[in-house]
């Protein structure tokens, strides 16, 4: 007889991700060993670099801001049953909206620039999510393939625009003009020099707001209920009178708009101009963040901080241990995706058996007790 049982909620939500994450880090440690450095020392440097001092923490939070948006872009679509791996392209194309608004309104006030830049970026990023959503809902295209293709199409468009349209005649590099005044997002260091030179800026609060917004959207609104119903059981959604195609398009649009916020954080928060490849893979990290965070805002916040720390600590590490290059972070990221995402079932089977056995022995204990009780009665 099979003793496997569904896992208790806490094991499902905490134990399994923790075990998978531990495994990912153990394998990462192995890689560090292979390239001839001490994993323990590396961890120390990494942790100190990420959290040990103000500027490090500032960078960690800055990266985490990107990862929150990217993670939400993946997760919101995921809740609707769509696999959005297009956050990269959605953020990239959104950079255009952000910079154009900022350049145009550079002489006003950031309180004017910010909402309008968010709107413009969100509209473009949202559109870049909407089209794959539309094609999936109405034409039956595979969202995964379409979003991959859209990443490349976005890259081509941006290279073209930066080289041929946005480039200043006086400038050799393919980049737009810079914003100098109101177009820049206010940096937290301006209020709190604790953060040193770290570019953490007002978008951090937007990220926190986005997390709360997502929670409310998914679990406290009718739309969220519909999104979750569709993602978990499309037939039930159809039965419940929920328009599958509308929900797919809406959720992909929201996802794209979430990814678009990366553009504000990077373009108007760090670079102050539009440059090539400013998204820098943040969109892809969102897949890891979403998976690790179990598509829940709290999980996404924690995972985003983890990856923010990895990115910042990793840079510190590359500086202190030249053998460990920045790509170490990419490796860790890959292992996290592999173990928490694709090999999620690695520990599940054994754990179900263990929990089943515990339950089983408890039950049989209880039964023998009962039997004994009966015996003594007789």
């Amino acid at each position: 007889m099979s003793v496997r049982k569904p896992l208790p909620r806490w094991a499902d939500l905490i134990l399994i991700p923790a075990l998978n994450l531990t495994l990912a880090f153990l394998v990462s440690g192995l890689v560090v060993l292979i390239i001839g450095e001490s994993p323990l020392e590396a961890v120390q440097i990494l942790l100190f670099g990420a959290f040990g001092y103000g500027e490090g923490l500032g960078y960690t939070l800055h990266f985490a801001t990107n990862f929150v948006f990217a993670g939400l872009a993946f997760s919101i679509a995921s809740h609707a049953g769509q696999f959005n791996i297009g956050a990269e392209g959605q953020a990239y194309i959104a950079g255009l909206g952000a910079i154009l608004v900022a350049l145009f309104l550079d002489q006003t006030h950031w309180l004017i620039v910010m909402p309008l830049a968010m709107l413009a970026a969100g509209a473009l990023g949202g559109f870049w999510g909407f089209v794959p959503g539309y094609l999936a809902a109405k034409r039956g295209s595979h969202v995964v393939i379409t979003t991959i293709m859209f990443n490349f199409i976005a890259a081509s468009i941006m290279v073209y625009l930066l080289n041929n349209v946005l480039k200043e005649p006086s400038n050799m590099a393919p980049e737009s003009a810079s914003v100098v005044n109101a177009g820049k997002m206010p940096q937290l260091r301006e209020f709190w020099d604790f953060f040193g030179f770290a570019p953490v800026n007002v978008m951090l609060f937007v990220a926190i707001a986005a997390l709360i917004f997502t929670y409310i959207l998914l679990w406290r609104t009718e739309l969220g209920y519909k999104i979750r119903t569709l993602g978990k059981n499309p037939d039930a959604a159809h039965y419940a009178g929920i328009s599958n195609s509308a929900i797919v398009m809406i959720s992909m649009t929201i996802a794209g708009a979430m990814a678009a916020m990366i553009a504000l954080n990077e373009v108007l928060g760090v670079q102050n101009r539009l440059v090539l490849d400013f998204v820098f893979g943040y969109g892809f990290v969102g897949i890891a963040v979403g998976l690790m965070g179990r598509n829940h805002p709290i999980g996404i916040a924690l995972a985003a901080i983890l990856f923010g720390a990895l990115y910042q600590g990793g840079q510190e590490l590359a500086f202190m241990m030249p053998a460990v290059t920045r790509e170490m972070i990419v490796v860790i990221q890959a292992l996290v995706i592999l173990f928490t995402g694709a090999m999620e079932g690695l520990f599940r089977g054994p754990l179900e058996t263990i929990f089943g056995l515990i339950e089983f022995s408890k039950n049989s204990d209880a039964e023998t007790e009962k039997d004994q009780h009966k015996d003594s009665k007789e």
Partner: protein
Amino acid sequence: MEFFNSSIFMLDSSIRLTVPLLLACLAGLYSERAGIFDIGLEGKMLAGAFAAATVAALSGSALYGLMAGIGVSIIMSLIHGVASITFRGNQIISGVAINFLAAGLTTLLGQTWFRQGGRTPQLSGDARFTGIELPYAAELADVPIIGGIYSELLSGHNILVYVAFAAVPITYYVLFHTRFGLRLRASGENPKAVDTAGVNVNFMRFKAVIITGVLCGIAGAYLSTAQSAGFGNNMTAGKGFIALAALIFAKWMPIRALFATLLFGFLDALQIRLQGVELPMIGEVPVQLIQALPYVLTVILLAGFIGKAVGPKAGGIPYVKER
């Protein structure tokens, strides 16, 4: 004649650019026909390229390099297999992980071993695959038309180019005329039918995934030890995804895969050729437009605006044998 020569030149460079796409495309074909989606072609090619260049540099033998490239690519394939077949994980997620793993590890190890910013040492001599002159190529070179086609276009490529093109009819034959091919295709269409016929579905899928590894390894070795003289960071530059696009474009058929990758290879050659060139009447053609064309075409095709691409029915779904 001028036009003819430049056309031959264009086609020749198209062929060179087609080879890695074709190999990767056929690689994906085996895997997806067996029901395993693979968006990790890029990563496997990259890992293969790195391993091939590394071993070729250390041993001085392109052949050893090739074997190493294939070996490493198979290992990546097996990771994908274990995740998506054994543990029934999500095949897309696993593919994404493979791509990151390859991108990170190749640069990291390259830097650790060679300290050249992730590049491997320059290869020369036997450490590279060099062109093979077909018989009488020199003699026929001056014959009009035929000479151009035979000596320029067909002759003078390295062995991997011929391997790639030979892989097309071989794949066709294997898929549609052998027991292995029949079972492989059935595994991607209706795995339960395969199981009840007494064939182990997961084992079939593993075999398919290993072939995918072999072909991606060859594609990688071609990039780093034949087309270039060494490995460079992220040298696949999205070729794995173009191959994926070509696979959809080819509707998972081997002969069509040849034409799809030739088309995409030609577009790549054209794009290189047109860079900075002012055409009469049109002016400078934005090369990005041509670069984006394979992706745009794939999106249009997938959306069913020109024909309809429907993949293997059981693609992406792990096979769960009830017990």
